[in-house]
Each structure stands twice: as C-alpha cells, then as structure tokens.
C-alpha cells in the first residue's frame, strides 16, 4: 500500500512522497494517510472508534451536565455562544468551498505539462505553505484594505481559502498522481482526450483517495477558523471572549468554547469516516 503523507505535515518540503502502488489492476491501491489533526474513526479501527465514542459522548454529557446542574454561569454562556457557532460554520463552509476550487486548480496546475502554469501553481503552494496562517490572515486583511473595503468576514474567508487552497492543492496532486498511469493510458488508447480522461477516469478515482485527507483538512480548517476572531468576526472563540470580558468568567467561558469545538470536530470526523465507508462500498 502506498502512503501519501498529509500535505500539511510535510511543511515546505517540495514533494509529498508518492510511492508506487500495490496492485495496479485494482486501481485503488493507494491510501492517503494523514498524520496531523483528528483521527478519523472508521468502524474497522476498534480502538480509535471507542476512543472517539468516549470523547464525543463525554464532551456532550459534560456540556449537558453543566447546563443542567451548574446553570450559573454555564447556562448563560451556552445561551450566549450559538451566534458564534453559526459564524464559525459560515466561515468554515465558505472557506472550504472556495479552498476546494482553488485547491483543485492548484493541484491540476502542479501536474500540468505546461511549464508556466506548473511554475505558477508550484510557487503559489511554496509561498503559502511557508507563511503561518495567522500572518496570512493579517496580511490579506490589511492588503485587501488598501485596495477595497470588504466586510471582515469576507476578508477572513479569502485568507482561509487562499491558505487552505495550497494544502488542498497538494492533496489533489498527490491523489491524482496516486492513480496508476495505466488508467490514463487505457483511456487515451480508447481515443479519449487527456481532459476527458481526467474528468471521467482519473478524478472520480481521485475523489475516493483524497476524501479522508480532505475531510481532515475540513476539520483542521474548522479549528483554524478560530484565528479569524482576530478580525472582528464574531465566531465561537470571539463570542466566548466577549462573554468572559463582561463577566470575568474566563475559565468557564473557555471551558465551554473548548468543549463545543471538540464536539463539532469529533462529530465531523465521524461523518467523514461514514462517507468514506459509503464510498468504499459503492463501486470499488
């Protein structure tokens, strides 16, 4: 089995290694393993799955318990936060949607045979991966501010999308390259153009390979979206801070914020695992 490292864990190094796949006849020997971020609990992995259950239901129970038995201040905090949760989702979903588009083009650009396109895509990936996300968010926010006035939330989304586009681009690239080259050959030998082969043969197989790491990046982005609280976007973290600065219940506020983040990320990691199982059942 080939292992493709997560784009993120390789930092600014040039290539995520893609080793030759297992059995080329099956066309699905590759699996992308992600080393950072939440574990994705498939039912097959018993230990991880039960750890997931304990954390998820433990965090939920803790939230409910605090809500019921320690209403002051926890009930007030929990009633204060939902706006922030919605904002966090808004930023995350919009960012990942834009990042997927940017990432797909970046990934295709990275494997393009046209030199100039390849070069541009590679430089984009190298530059973005070399700058911390928080710095990028500040930078894009103020750089945009010099040109046009955009709402804070839009600036945040653009910054997140530009950053994550680079990471997703590497995942797409590794995913596409993990498809055995015989697939492209078989397709063009039948008279398909490279574009048709890419769309009908390579990308559908890539989706299955990249889904777990993409899900992981989504969850990582959900967590990183807390950085946008710096830009006056009232996300979950910022709502927590707003509450705490009024009441000085810092410990209590951040306890709830942390638990809510945990419940969300664990929920999504299970969802990603379910999607993966589904795809694996259908049409292998």
């Amino acid at each position, binding site marked *: 089995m080939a292992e493709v490292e997560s784009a993120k864990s390789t930092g600014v190094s040039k290539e995520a290694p893609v080793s030759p796949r297992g059995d080329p006849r099956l066309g699905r020997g590759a699996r992308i393993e992600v080393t950072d971020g939440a574990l994705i609990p498939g039912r097959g992995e018993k230990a991880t799955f039960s750890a997931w259950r304990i954390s998820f239901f433990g965090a939920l129970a803790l939230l409910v318990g605090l809500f019921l038995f320690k209403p002051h201040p926890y009930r007030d905090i929990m009633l204060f936060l939902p706006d922030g949760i919605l904002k966090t989702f808004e930023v995350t979903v919009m960012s990942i949607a834009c990042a997927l588009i940017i990432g797909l083009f970046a990934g295709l650009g990275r494997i393009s045979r046209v030199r100039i396109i390849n070069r541009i895509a590679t430089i984009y990936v190298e530059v973005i991966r070399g700058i911390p996300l928080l710095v990028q968010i500040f930078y894009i926010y103020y750089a945009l501010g010099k040109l046009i006035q955009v709402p804070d939330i839009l600036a945040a989304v653009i910054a997140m999308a530009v950053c994550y586009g680079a990471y997703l681009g590497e995942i797409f690239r590794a995913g596409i390259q993990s498809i055995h080259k015989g697939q492209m050959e078989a397709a063009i030998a039948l008279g*398909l153009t490279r574009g048709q082969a890419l769309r009908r043969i390579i990308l559908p197989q890539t989706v299955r390979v990249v889904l777990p790491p993409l899900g992981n990046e989504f969850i990582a982005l959900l967590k990183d979206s807390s950085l946008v609280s710096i830009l006056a976007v009232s996300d979950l973290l910022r709502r927590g801070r707003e509450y705490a600065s009024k009441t000085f219940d810092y410990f209590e506020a951040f306890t709830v914020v942390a638990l809510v983040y945990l419940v969300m990320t664990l929920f999504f990691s299970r969802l990603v695992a379910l999607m993966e199982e589904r795809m694996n059942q259908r049409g292998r």
Partner: protein
Amino acid sequence: MADRVRIVNACKYFGKVVALRNASLSVKPGEVVLVIGPSGSGKSTMLRCINRLEHLSSGEIWVDEDKVTDHASDIRKIREEVGMVFQSFNLFPHLTALENITLAPRVVKKISDTDARDLGRKLLARVGLSEKETVFPEQLSGGQQQRVAIARALAMSPKVMLFDEPTSALDPEMIKEVLDVMVELAKEGMTMLVVSHEMGFARAAAHTVVFMDNGEIIERGPPEAVFAAPKEERTQRFLKHIL
C-alpha cells in the same frame, strides 16, 4: 493489398537506452502477428509506438493511410481505430464491466446511452460474460477482467488490435479463457499484433511470428518455420529457453 500497419526504420531511445533499432514491419489486413523475444527486447515499446503511447525517436509508422508519427495527424482518430489490451488490464475500477465498455463509445463517438448499452451487452456476450454486466472489476477474476478489457477495446470497432502481454499477469488456469477469445477474434479476421509467448496461441491463430532481440527485429516468418527451423542463431537460443 495495402498494409494495415507499416513500421519503417523505427528507432526509440530512452535516454541512452536503445529500445528500438531500425525496426521495420508490415502487417496486412487480417494478419495475426505474434511478437516474441526476451524481456527488454523492445516488443512492448514497438506496440506502444503504434498508437503513440510512446513517441518514436526516428522512423515512421502508418496505420492504413494515417501517419502516426506525423504530429499533424489526428492521433485520437487513429487511436479510435487501434484497440489496445494491456498486461495489467487497466480496467476502470470505478465503473462496472458494462460501463467500462460503453464509456469510450459514449464519450468519444457520442453514441446514445441506449445504443451504447446494446453494444456493450453484445460485446459482453461475445466474451462470455453476459451475467457480469453490473459487476465491478475488483469482483472479477483476472481472466474475466482481461476479457472485459478486450470487449472494451472492441467497442470502438478498431481495425487493428494490439495485445501487450495479455496473459502474463494471469494465473495459468485463466490463460485459456483469454486465448480462446483472442483466437476467436483472429478467426473473424481481425488484424492483430500480439506480444506474447503463448505457443498455444501461436499454433492456433498466428500467421506470422516476429522475433525481436535488443531492439531489433531478428527474424520473421510463418510460425512453423520460425519455431521448427529458426534461421538465426539468436532465435534458436531464445526458443530453446521457452519451448
């Protein structure tokens, strides 16, 4: 009769490695050519140059009136007419057996879904896999996968079929079912170039045997002649190993 495939002074280098040295070969319509030779002798490379999966370094290749090696000619049109079967099958794992066959007719020839399905079913029946229509490649045996791959290539109604070691990746008990399909195809008059060491196929269907070594075509002739009384010393030595 005009040649269906004509290879003239073909040379192919991979860096410093010479894969083909001045190989010339012509194949008549309906002729079945078996290409044998040690591994690394350029057999597969020659085949892969015919539909330009590899580019020749020098020389010319023609398929009927179309010059494959001319960059101005429409290589996709040529590829439609040249079917290829690979050693590793290369079926599309995300598509069913039927979808594997119908994809190219639908996408390239733009025939309707219903027509494509009828065509696909006919071809599956022809390779004896009618009941496998909705099955994905992974659930098929190697022999069955290769038969689907043959049907997939036939779906474009090619004028020539190229077989690149079609049985090398198969377990022995599955070789026959694939060879049977190929012999059937040969009897129906398909022009075929087959890289293989299957003597059973040579006896049953081949009109011509070509022996290659070190990128060169050393000897060619009817199978009886080449196998029974090879003229060249290198051919004799090679045949001693495989017979």
